[in-house]
Structures are given as C-alpha cells and as structure tokens.
C-alpha cells in the first residue's frame, strides 16, 4: 500500500517535471495556492473525435455554502456540474475557508487520468484553476473533497456528462442520504402503538354496530 502511494507520488513527480516542457500535459502543478493533478487540455478520451466545446465553472467551497442546508458543515456553491460529452471543462475552484479544500472527480478513464481522478486542491482562502476533458459516455461521476469527513459532512457532488447515469446518493440539494437518521420525537413509539390501538377500537366498534343493524332480531 505504501509502495503504491510512493509510486503514485513518483509518477506525479515525473509527470510534473515532464509538464514543465509540455505545459498542457497530465501531472501535478503545485504552488503555494494548492495543486492541480492530472490536468488535460488536449488529449482526447477514446470515442471522442474532437473536443465538443469548452465549458467553464467557478465553484466556491466553504462553510458558508453549507449554511442553507441543515445537518452539513462544509458545502460548495454548486454540488452538481452538467457538461456535454467530450467537452473541455475548466473549473476555477475558490476556497473561502481558512483550511484546505478539494474538488476531486473519480472514475475517469485511467489511461488519461492516473488512478482515474482529476484533482484540484486549494489552500485556505486561495483559488486554483484546472482543466480536463470528459469522456463521450453519458455517465454521472462523483465529485468530492477527500479531506477526512468533508465529503460526509457536505462536500459531495456529481459531474453529469450528457444525460448522466442516474443521481448518486447523498448529494446535498440533489439526492437523499442513503442512511438517514429518523428524526422522530422520542415518544414516537408510544404514539404509533396508541394510533394502532385507536384504529383497532374504531374498526371493532364499527363492525359491531354493522352486525347489530344487519341482524334480524
């Protein structure tokens, strides 16, 4: 596992030094503002004849973008990004907090994006911009911040390419949590049992009266 991480870094470093010569190739760009990993400006995913168009987004991250939605702590100004197949996507990621945040896409083709990911990371109160090209298939990809618990506490989103492949669970403002607390009052059990008893009593009384009316004597 450690070897794998080390080799990943090595790959990143080598690719990074290569990108010094070929400015627009995959690898890691790092400065005091953060990192962009596996940027791709011109290499086409398989099945794309050409770049279908350029789309650009500015996405803010921070605590204030969670304020509208109860039960999350961190948020993004936009939790869903919709793009056409084969489009070139440029994301300007603005971090309004004083801690690191990330905008990371998973599940991209590994022949273009090592480990299948495209990753922007911005230090506190800094911004980073990165570009990548999406594949031709209609598919929904996970976007998240992989700082411990940031995805779980709000920084979870989806990248919808074309028509997508169905919403992911747990995207704030888009889809419900798969595991959700019940949020019913503590006395709910008593309430439910007494409601059932009431219904039982009512139906019994109604049946009895119906029988009495129907009987000849």
């Amino acid at each position, binding site marked *: *596992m*450690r*070897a*794998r*991480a*080390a080799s990943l*870094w090595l790959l*990143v*470093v080598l690719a*990074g030094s290569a990108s010094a010569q070929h400015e627009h190739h995959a690898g*890691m760009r*790092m400065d*005091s503002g953060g*990192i962009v*990993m596996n940027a791709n400006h011109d290499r086409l995913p398989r099945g794309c004849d050409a770049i279908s168009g350029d789309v650009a987004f500015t996405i803010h991250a*921070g*605590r204030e973008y969670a304020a509208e939605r*109860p*039960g*999350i*702590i*961190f948020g993004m100004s936009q939790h869903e990004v919709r793009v056409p197949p084969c489009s070139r996507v440029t994301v300007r990621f603005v971090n309004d*907090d*004083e*801690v*690191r945040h*990330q905008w*990371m896409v*998973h599940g991209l083709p590994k022949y273009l994006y090592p*480990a*299948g*990911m495209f*990753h922007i*990371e911005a*230090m*506190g109160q800094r911004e980073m911009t990165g570009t990548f090209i999406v594949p031709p298939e209609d598919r929904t990809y996970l976007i998240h911040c*992989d*700082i*411990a*618990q*940031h995805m*779980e*506490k709000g920084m979870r989103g989806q990248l919808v390419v074309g028509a997508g492949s169905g919403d992911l*669970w*747990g995207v704030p403002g888009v889809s419900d*949590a*798969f*595991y*959700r*607390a019940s949020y019913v009052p503590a006395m709910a059990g008593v309430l439910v049992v007494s409601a059932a008893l009431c219904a039982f009593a009512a139906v019994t009384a109604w049946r009895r009266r119906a029988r009495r009316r129907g009987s000849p004597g």
Partner: protein
Amino acid sequence: MRLRRHLPWLALVLIAFIAYPPQWYPESVRMLQTSWFGAAPYHALPASTLPASLAPEVYCPPDPSGWRDAQTIEGVAVRASPPCVADNPHLVAAVVRGTNNVSAETLANSGLTPDAVEKGRDLDGDGDPDEIHIRLEVAELNGGSPVRKAPVTRYAIAPGVEPGLWVFAPKLIGMAAETFESNEARYSLRLPSPAIRIEQGDHVVITLENTHYMPHTLHLHGADHGFTDASGEGNDGVPLTSEVPVMPGGARSYELTPRHAGTMFYHCHVQPHVHVQMGLQGLFIVEENRPDNWLQTLNIGAGLVRAPSKAVSESYAQEYDLHYLDLDKQLVERIQANNDPRLIAQSMHRDYDVTDATADYFTLNGRSFPYTFRESIVVADQDERVRLHVVNGGTMGIALHTHGHKFTVTDRDGVALPDAARSLQDVVWLATAQRVDLVLNFTNDGLHSYGPGIWLFHDHQSRGVTTDGIGPGGNISAIVYRQYLGEDGWPKNRGVSWDPYFTPQYYRREVPVWQSYAPGLFAEPGGDRLLLLRLLVLALSTGALGALLVSASRDR
C-alpha cells in the same frame, strides 16, 4: 374397557419417565441405583469442535520503499528504524529542514504541504533556525457516512478494531485515504497526534487549521506560553477564559517562546472530557538549546526519533516517544452511529456521561497488541543508554512495567528530579496527563538489565494488557535486543504462534485462547445430541399429558 380408557396417559407417563435424563434423578435415587447396578456405562463427553481455520494477517508487512534503512535526505541523517514498520524518512527530513527549505521532490515524497513546518531565521546565530511555524489540521478516523455502513478513513488499532478517533494531523496535501477504493487512512494520518519537538527559546507559532466539523482549540499543557499572544489575543486554548474556539473551516495561531526544556503535552480544550479522550492530544517536547540543533519537529505516530537532538545525542544512543492512551468504546463509537453533526454533538456532549465511563481499548503510540510489535518496540544493543519520553493521555492511569530491566525516572512533568529522588525502579505510575522521562541502561549487571532477550513492557494493571477484555492485547510492547530481531524487523519469538492474535475473530471472542498450540484441548465442546433428544421427547410427552388432563377436567 377401563384399561383402554387409561392407556393413553399411562403410555405418556411411561415415555416421560424413560425420557427423563438419568443424571438429573435425585442423588439419593442415583445412590440407590449404584448400590444395585454399579455406575452407568461410559458415555463419552461431547468431542471438541475445532473452529473454522483462520486467515491471519501478515505479521510484518514488507518495506519495498526502504523506509526502514538509514539514509541521508536533504543533508539530514535519518537513522535506521529497526522495527518492521518505519516512519516515512522523507517526511522526517522535511520536518528537520523545514518544508519551506526542501526540494519539490522531497516535499512530494513527504506528502506535506509547503507550509506544514516552516523554518525561518537563526535568531541567536548558533546555526539552527529559531523561527518555527507549525500547521496542524484535525482529522477524524473511522468516522460515519451518509452512504456507507463501514467506517470511513479507516484506521485499525488492532486486527478488526476500528474505534472512531479525532487527531491533530500534520498538514498533508492530497487525499485522506491511501486510495479511493481502499478508504484506508493515509500512512501519516493516524493516532496518536504527532509528537512535536521544539528548542528552548525558539519563536514558535502553531496554527490550528480546523478541518474538522466541530469546534476545537490547542492548549499547551505544561509548556511555557503567555495567556495572550503579542497582539493581545487569547493564547491558552481554553474557551472558558481565553478565546472563542476555532470553528470548522477556521484557523487560529498560538505562540510561544519556552524558557524551559522538558516533556510537555498539548491537547484540545473544547469539551475536554470528550475531545481529549477522542485522541486530540500529543507529546510536546522542548529540547535544550544547543548550537546547530536541527530538530525533528514532528514525530509521526511517536516512537523512535530518527533525527534526535544534539542534547539527546550527547548522552543517549537512542530516543523514543511513548504515548499511552485508553479509549472508551461507548464514546468512540458515537461518531459512527450518525452522520448529522447536530446528532453527533448531542450524543457526545449530552447523552454520553463520562462519570459512568470505563476504558475498553489501551493503546501505545496509537496501536494495541499485536500491532504494537510492528512499530513500537524498543530495539537496543548491550551497553546502550536509551531515553524514553512517556505520557499517559488516558483516563485510567498507567503502571508502566519493564521486564528484564530497571529504569531511572530522571524527569517528571518536564522538570528534572534531584539526584536524591532518582532510583532504579521497574514500575512507574503515571496519572492522567502525567509525563516521565526514563533512562533505560542496557548494561547487563543483573539490575539495570538481566541480559539480552525479548522483554515485554506494559501497563501492569490487568485491563491495560487487554483489548476490550481480551488478552493478549492493549499496550503490550517489548524491549528487543538486536540479536533477537529478524532481518525484517520482527522479533525472533520463541513462544507460541501469534496467528490467532492477527485475526479479527480473536478480538471478537470467537477463538479459544490456547488454540494455536493445544488445538482441541481447551476448545469449545460440541453439543450433547442425545440429551437434547431426551429433553424434546420429555417436553412433547408432558405437553400431551397436560392436554389430556385439561380435556378430562372439562369432560367432567
């Protein structure tokens, strides 16, 4: 005619009588039987059931990157780390030089951000930097999730044991997980919070960047710091008296220029009866000022200091940080039960009652036995002198005991003891938050050391050597002489197989304790099918008899 009417119940009584287990007859009846017929014939006790075969983990994971080896990185001599799992030497070098002073390659290999440990000017002109800026984040390990049941950012303290934890973490760039698929916490993201090392007189700034979803602070326990900083802001980390806590996504800097050297402590002071026990605590060591003293500012996971200070190197062959912490299962599982931070806050700070608490897990440097043997053993040669900095961050107290050695306590709570108060001992009591500095002297004189071997050291209180009551577990580790250490860093044990201890089943109470060397002898016995059959027949016949009685009484 009459007999026919009574036949059914008579038959049932007879069947019940035959089915009734003879070993349950009254003793007087059994004695009478014995006098007539002698003892009952041999009826073998149920055979042992052998548990399903276990798949133990690899004791000592391989080290393909050569992290254990001695190496020089960025001009920093990083010492060899003999146990099988070692710290990342690139990170060691980066925090010695300062993450602002190393090459992009070393920084990338360390995993740290460029501002994780910044080292500035040499203020006293003695050849080492005296302006130190450390940035710490707060990470949750084994936490909850809205989309999966398994804990996220996983970190096992022992096989299959994954308690929810909060730690101060070095500022690492990139993902918290080793890979997206594995969801295992990254190598340097772990319990305990890193041991911090600074030099006496350094101008130190520690910025707490609160990446966690709850408020936290940093309190420097025992280290010389002002109540306010230079700008008049609160600097003690205590919400009651000093400042408003650092909210999620926020940051705050603490400053100190310590006048005294010693082994101190740092921890969060927000709802401390909960937050400190979740793991928000670390060793804080102020080293004596020496010329050209480049310190290893962070010791990830505590343990061996691979780039020790000048003062320590003058008198000791090696230096280790030992951080003991106990955990309450009923507290740590609360962050896994819910994902809504409001429910977590209620569960931890209102529902949880620390006055009813008992500790269940006992860790040394963030792991319990057998994982302690991978990374927290003390390895030494004969005639070496070894320095140990020990803290007990747990609630229960530690009776730290060494086999085969008597040690000397030289400092308590960061203050040197007078010579008259120093004596050889083999148990030292550490109250909660207490620190002691120990000297282990490996001179084989029958007092300091009884000679080479694999000698355990552990909390001598019984619970401390268990994991939720299952032993061996807890904070057991060992002093291992080099001749007893294998090439891979695993001690050459001469005792029993550890296979069961490297399975989650053992700590789930599913494996008989002496299974590895006495298979079957003390295993779980199988069931007595004959007795079960007798009881079933007895139940059926008495039930039928009862029904006959009821119907007979009705007919009447």
